[in-house]
């Protein structure tokens, strides 16, 4: 979990070409990387997918008070891939997403059973530091939520939390993150200006940059484009595809075209259940479950 500025700052001319520092305890993920570059879809299991498993959920039940919002949800999320969570409103996909970095902890009366693990370690077990977990599993929200401070301060917020004080290091991280979020060109002269003055699309990319600045391993996105116009959506989607090379992305979306366009794998939720999870190409052409087919072909939802 140590962040070393030197490794991430080494290549300013191609800031995002380098993968974020590896933090997994064992070296297995490193070995799996090369294999992942040439995925063999035929050998992939529908649940486990290809490549190394970064996060996985098993038998997750979640209750808001007495109301059950998730029923025995199980899924694996492979490293360096985009998984889209789709389903009608209220089906539990956002709730499930928020389980993955324990954002549901904030909600009173929310109870979770089952296993959610990051690199094989259960994130709900005792002794897990939620603060460190959230630094490894970042989140981008539905509505852009820039802090009421300058653009620079927004991006530097996360690194500062990790104890980075050196101004030059912070400048490097801010620039890299903004370049990575495809926002640098638009804001590089206005870094000291308030982030609240940016347009909605810029604010959302700023929020992505802010998340990237903590160098997470997994990025969760809760309908990141739902408040954006089509042009901004396109930019964010392009960005997601670039981020895929370095991060594990899990995205909730209401837009099935978006899921089909961007994601490697798609999970379909209905009434708190995970109906089906598979390769996106297969999900959108030949889904196994009748309910998935009905939803995808627009018969309901």
């Amino acid at each position: 979990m140590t962040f070393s500025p030197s490794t991430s700052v080494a290549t300013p001319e191609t800031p995002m070409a380098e993968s974020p520092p590896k933090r997994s305890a064992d070296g297995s993920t490193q070995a799996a990387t090369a294999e992942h570059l040439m995925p063999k879809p035929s050998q992939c299991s529908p649940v486990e997918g290809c490549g190394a498993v970064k996060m996985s959920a098993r038998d997750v039940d979640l209750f808001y008070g007495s109301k059950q919002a998730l029923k025995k949800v199980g899924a694996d999320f492979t490293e360096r891939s985009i998984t889209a969570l789709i389903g009608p409103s209220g089906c539990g996909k956002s709730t499930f997403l928020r389980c993955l970095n324990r954002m549901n902890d904030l909600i009173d009366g929310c109870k979770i059973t089952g296993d959610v693990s990051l690199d094989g370690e259960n994130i709900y077990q005792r002794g897990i530091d939620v603060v460190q977990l959230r630094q490894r599993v970042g989140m981008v929200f539905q509505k852009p939520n820039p802090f009421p401070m300058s653009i620079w301060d927004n991006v530097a917020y996360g690194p500062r939390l990790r104890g980075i004080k050196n101004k030059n290091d912070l400048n490097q991280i801010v620039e890299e993150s903004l370049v990575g979020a495809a926002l640098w060109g638009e804001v590089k002269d206005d870094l000291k200006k308030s982030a609240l003055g940016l347009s909605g699309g810029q604010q959302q990319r700023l929020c992505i940059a802010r998340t990237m600045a903590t160098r997470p391993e997994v990025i969760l996105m809760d309908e990141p484009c739902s408040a954006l116009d089509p042009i901004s959506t396109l930019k964010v989607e392009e960005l997601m595809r670039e981020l895929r090379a370095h991060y594990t992305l899990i995205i909730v979306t209401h837009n099935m075209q978006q899921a089909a366009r961007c994601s490697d794998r798609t999970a379909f939720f209905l009434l708190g259940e995970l109906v089906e999870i598979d390769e996106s190409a297969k999900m959108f052409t030949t889904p196994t479950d009748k309910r998935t087919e009905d939803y995808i072909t627009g018969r309901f939802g």
Partner: protein
Amino acid sequence: MASFSPSTMSTAPDARPMSPGVAPLPPMSKSLVTRRKTSNIAMQALCGFATFLAIIPLILVISYILIKGLAVMNLDFFTQVQKPANDMGGGMKHSIVGTLMMVGLACGIGLPFGIMGGIYLSEFGGNRMGFAIRFAADVLNGVPSIIIGLFVYAIAVLPITKATHGQITFSAWAGGLALGIMMIPTIMRTTEEIVRLVPMSLREGALALGDTRWHSVFKIVLASAKGGVVTGVLLAIARISGETAPLLFTALSNNFYNTDPSRPTASLPVTIYQFATSPSDNWQALAWGGALVLVSLIFVLSIAARYFTRSKN
């Protein structure tokens, strides 16, 4: 709907058959229309008149203070202390400085406790404890200020007088404490309300970056609620700076200029009270000057409070 008039309505049934649910209503009678229009105008006029009556006292008070107060305004008023009752001239420097000193001391107590208490209520006060504190704050807000003065007299002034064998009795410390206690519930409740308005998404944004609850509240939530919190603080200051009763048993007063907070200290409201009730014409005139300074202070604070609320929006 522009063509909605009794005439078109009466012809509607002939034009096309209607289902029972949308049968046209009978036309409004002319007298009813007139009656409603008249009562509308009458009630509006009545409200306007009531408002006018309500602000007449305010206008009278302010203009009276301005006229009487400006008559004694000069440099001496701010640079000199009071003179013996039969002499002419003199000023209220001791009272102005004393008020500023005690308001400052009160802020030292009221601000940290009020703001942090407000944050606690908003962020962590959803439980029984929060309910109890909120209730206590509301009760404290309603306690008459003279009771606060008596309380501070009993817990701070008397014991210290005994302990120091009368060396230290009434003091600006005690006055500041009494005013500070009065500030706490006001600041606490306004801070709570304002901090509660900060959208949840901002808190979540900070927490999702790996922030701790405390740090996110101070860096993000308080920063976005800044304008409202400042407004609450200014209004609390405006409220306490005119308080007389809590100072009677705590700071007492002083005829001389004093900057030592452990000694009896003059304040604008108490001095105004003493001067206004004295037989000296000179002192009575000075009291009007003191009233003008006090009202101006509160006026400026209120304007500043409005400014901070507006700039937030």
